[in-house]
């Protein structure tokens, strides 16, 4: 086919006079994948919705969207409806809200087929089953009869993809298709998307904030900032030779799985501008590390800098200006902490158990969710333990059990050497003082009605510290906030600032152990780096220990000393971060690590993925013996004699190397026991 399938030119979208998209243009050819990246509010999704003609009526759309040379902007609804779903399809972020809950998924796909093709009901139903098979739904006949809520998130996203490719579209627009999914499921879904594309030869527009996903999947990439494209070009070219400082900054601020503490993250200062208050000149100017007077004069146009590579930067012509990771000035030498064995244990968890009754009407289900089923680890002074795992593996439950400071259902928790089961009304407050918490979403964890000062002063008041003012000011300075912020309400701060407030509050009582529950996952990429650096810096300066719960393995790589990988309420592997990431022993850790995309097109494409099959089993009825065996790639290739032990005996964490334990009966065998 000649010429682009979809060509967007000078697209402008305004909501009530406020511009959301300000002149975006791109084109995709058949079989090509275009990645659109940017932070929230950059206008990515609005661009996609405008191209599909799905924006609400009050949105003002200008410019041109040509599909096979046919103008879609200003087209009537009937014309658009003929195109939507047939020539152009969309996959949304949240498949639960995109599927009708009251119809079986097979019927929904068949309906999508019958809207655009004159086929009989039976043919459409058969086609639905074929499509479900294509996207890898096990037993597609049965799957077609399921309701959306009966499927897991990954399965639902597969159904969405099946629906999108049902009519052999020419363009599929995917809006954050894997953001709501766990990494191992994300890898599966991307694989399905690739397969579906190979089958239909469609062009794909992939909208995401994850630079790693784009690196592995897209042919070309377009970076958006403040409603405009600021850089576009072939993926390798843009990733290896970014010309726009924003792109370079994004690449520098993303934690990477293949780089640890030795290469610190470089945050982008400040936050994205509000769409109704854009700065004069280049919108990135105020945050740009290499801004020059010329930048404030006028907004630079998207101009070619190399064949096929465009950048909107006044200084793009000066090579070597935008550097992803500028070398950091040498750290002032800190005295080395004493070796681990000689440091005091601040938190010890042994055989922790937490079961709770399954949701649903009591007595009817009667099941027990084995959320945490024998978890053990310890944290020593000045150390960071990363607790990682996919959603539902019990990491947050573990953390809540520790924070309750009460007698656990089973096992022991010792905080600073004190058994929590033996704490009394009198002794508990002292332990509370030294054990503080930072939650995931700072907007939810800060009382919206209190000022920043009151929020940070609250723990001080609770522990009867008088005259909190100076202390609050010191704390705000410590986390990099202005004293003037004290008078604001959380709603008036940016996401990064709010999380800093939450950290300041946690530090108010000078704790020794800080529990962090996904502290950066609710934040934008460019802001995340700043918080990760702040936490690392505070930990070193104040001698804090962290229990860092996260699902993002790359972040953990950057901040943790040790890592514990959880699967279905148990620990699969635990050890020093470098060891575990370099040479994972548990098949699950291996799969997890291989599923995390790396924002480097060359590396990302030459990696071999260990794809896991299926979903995490329900914690109500976990598999006997080793809980991972139902999805374990190693189990699949083991001879029957060796499998017996996996089926019957739950593996305990056993040390295989110094400070590296693994809960697998066959950890020593060569990786995967490959064919």
């Amino acid at each position, binding site marked *: 086919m000649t010429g682009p399938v979809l060509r967007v030119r000078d697209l402008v979208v305004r909501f009530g006079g406020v511009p959301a998209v300000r002149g975006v243009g791109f084109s995709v050819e058949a079989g090509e994948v275009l990645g659109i990246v940017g932070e929230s509010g950059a206008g990515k999704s609005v661009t996609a919705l405008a191209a599909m003609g799905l924006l609400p009526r009050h949105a003002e759309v200008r410019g041109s969207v040509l599909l096979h040379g046919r103008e879609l902007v200003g087209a009537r609804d009937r014309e658009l409806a003929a195109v939507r779903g047939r020539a152009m399809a969309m996959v949304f972020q949240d498949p639960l809200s995109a599927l009708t809950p009251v119809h079986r998924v097979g019927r929904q796909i068949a309906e999508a087929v019958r809207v655009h093709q004159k086929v009989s009901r039976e043919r459409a139903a058969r086609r639905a089953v074929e499509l479900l098979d294509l996207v890898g739904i096990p037993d597609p006949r049965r799957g077609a009869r399921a309701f959306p809520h009966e499927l897991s998130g990954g399965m639902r996203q597969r159904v969405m993809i099946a629906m999108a490719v049902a009519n052999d579209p020419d363009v599929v627009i995917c809006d954050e298709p894997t953001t709501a999914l766990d990494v191992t499921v994300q890898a599966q879904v991307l694989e399905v998307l690739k397969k579906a594309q190979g089958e239909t030869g469609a062009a794909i527009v992939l909208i995401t904030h994850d630079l790693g996903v784009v690196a592995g999947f897209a042919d070309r990439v377009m970076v958006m900032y403040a409603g405009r494209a600021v850089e576009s070009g072939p993926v390798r070219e843009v990733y290896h030779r970014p010309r726009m400082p924003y792109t370079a900054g994004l690449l520098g601020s993303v934690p990477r799985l293949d780089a640890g503490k030795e290469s610190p993250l470089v945050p982008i200062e400040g936050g994205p501008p509000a769409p109704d208050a854009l700065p004069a000149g280049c919108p990135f100017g105020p945050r740009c590390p290499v801004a020059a007077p010329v930048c404030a004069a006028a907004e630079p146009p998207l101009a070619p800098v190399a064949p096929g590579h465009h950048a909107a930067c006044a200084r793009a012509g000066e090579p070597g200006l935008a550097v992803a990771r500028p070398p950091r000035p040498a750290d002032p030498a800190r005295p080395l902490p004493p070796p681990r064995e000689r440091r005091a244990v601040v938190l010890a968890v042994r055989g922790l158990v937490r079961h709770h009754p399954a949701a649903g009407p009591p007595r009817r289900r009667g099941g027990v969710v084995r959320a945490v089923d024998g978890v053990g680890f310890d944290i020593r002074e000045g150390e960071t333990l990363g607790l990682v795992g996919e959603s539902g593996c019990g990491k947050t439950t573990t953390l809540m059990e520790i*924070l309750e400071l009460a007698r656990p259902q089973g096992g022991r928790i010792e905080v600073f050497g004190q058994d929590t089961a033996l704490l009394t009304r009198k002794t*508990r*407050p002292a332990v*509370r*003082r030294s*054990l*503080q*918490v930072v*939650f*995931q*979403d700072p907007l*939810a*964890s*800060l*009382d*919206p*009605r209190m*000022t*920043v*000062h*009151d929020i940070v002063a*609250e*723990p001080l008041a*609770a*522990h009867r510290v008088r*005259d909190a*003012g*100076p202390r609050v*000011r010191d704390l705000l300075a410590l986390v990099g906030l202005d*004293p*003037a912020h*004290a*008078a604001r*309400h959380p*709603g008036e701060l940016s996401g990064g600032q709010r999380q800093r407030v*939450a950290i300041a*509050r946690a530090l108010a*009582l000078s704790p020794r152990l800080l529990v962090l529950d996904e502290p950066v996952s609710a934040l934008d990429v460019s802001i995340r780096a700043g918080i990760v650096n702040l936490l690392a810096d505070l930990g070193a300066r104040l001698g804090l220990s962290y229990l860092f719960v996260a699902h993002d393995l790359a972040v953990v790589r950057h901040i943790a000393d040790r890592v514990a990988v959880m699967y279905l309420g148990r620990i699969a592997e635990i050890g020093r971060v470098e060891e575990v990431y370099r040479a994972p022993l548990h098949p699950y850790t291996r799969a997890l690590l291989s599923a995390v995309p790396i924002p480097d097109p060359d590396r990302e494409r030459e990696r071999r993925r260990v794809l896991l099959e299926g979903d995490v089993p329900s914690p109500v009825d976990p598999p006997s013996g080793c809980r991972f065996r139902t999805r374990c790639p190693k189990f699949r290739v083991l001879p029957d004699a060796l499998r017996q032990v996996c089926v019957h005996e739950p593996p305990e964490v056993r040390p295989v190397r110094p400070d590296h334990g693994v809960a697998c009966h066959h950890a020593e065998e060569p990786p995967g026991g490959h064919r």
Partner: protein
Amino acid sequence: MITPADRRAARTGYPRAPSRSRTVARRFLRSGQGRLGAALLCLVVLPALAGPLVCRWSPADLDFGAFLRPPSAAHWFGTTQTGGDVFALTMSGTRRSLAVGLLVAVLATAVAAVTGACAGYFLGWTDRVLMRVADLLLVLPAFLVLAVMSPLFGPGRWPLFVVMLTLFLWMVTGKVVRGMTRSLREREYIRAARYMGVPAGTIIFRHVLPNLASLLIVDATLNVSAAILTETSLSYFGFGVQPPEVSLGGLIADGARTALYAPWTFWFAAGTLVGTILSVNLAGDALRDAFDPGGRR
């Protein structure tokens, strides 16, 4: 005025937080509805308070030279069949009705807030006991019980009447507060406070109740109207505030008999009642908007 906070601000060179009540007051007075409500309320309350100072008649006085006279210079609102001054009576009745209404509303909302929040926060036994009490009170026919008890509300005993009205007015709000507290208690900032070691009582009063403020305020206003209306209807039937004390309900009942040929005996009292309830509702609505932190400044 220099407050300790100002002094601390001067010493630490650190801007003082804008006080929440001042922000709310500013926003309240900026809205048209709020100003209208406040003005109307003043229009009703100020004469009621100033009544005895500016009027030479007292509610108990009878002018035997003027029976059922229309409004004049001597009797601003006219006179009743027995020669009572309608202005003095209306102002006195408004005073009593307002006092009953405001007291009942504030008390009922306070009781609802505290019981609801405690039940919702502590759950378990506290919850079960408090909610059974609420259920019990809900099934009792309030109007009937109050009517039966009316002989007890004799002269000077109206505070007892206030207590009884309160007792029958808090349950629905209490249940709503309990429900909202249950969901609030799982919110992260409440959990954060708990893990910081903030005692339960402090959490309820500092985090739970302020976050229910808009609900409580709207409810308090509705309760003012409800209480005034209950009081007037009881008094209308002669079960509420007992003579010689006057209330709007009693006045309206008396005036209704002569309303056709001497409208001033009825309309001034009825108009005051409508004005009071309207202004209280307007002000309550504006106050809710002012409290909402997400609302525009």
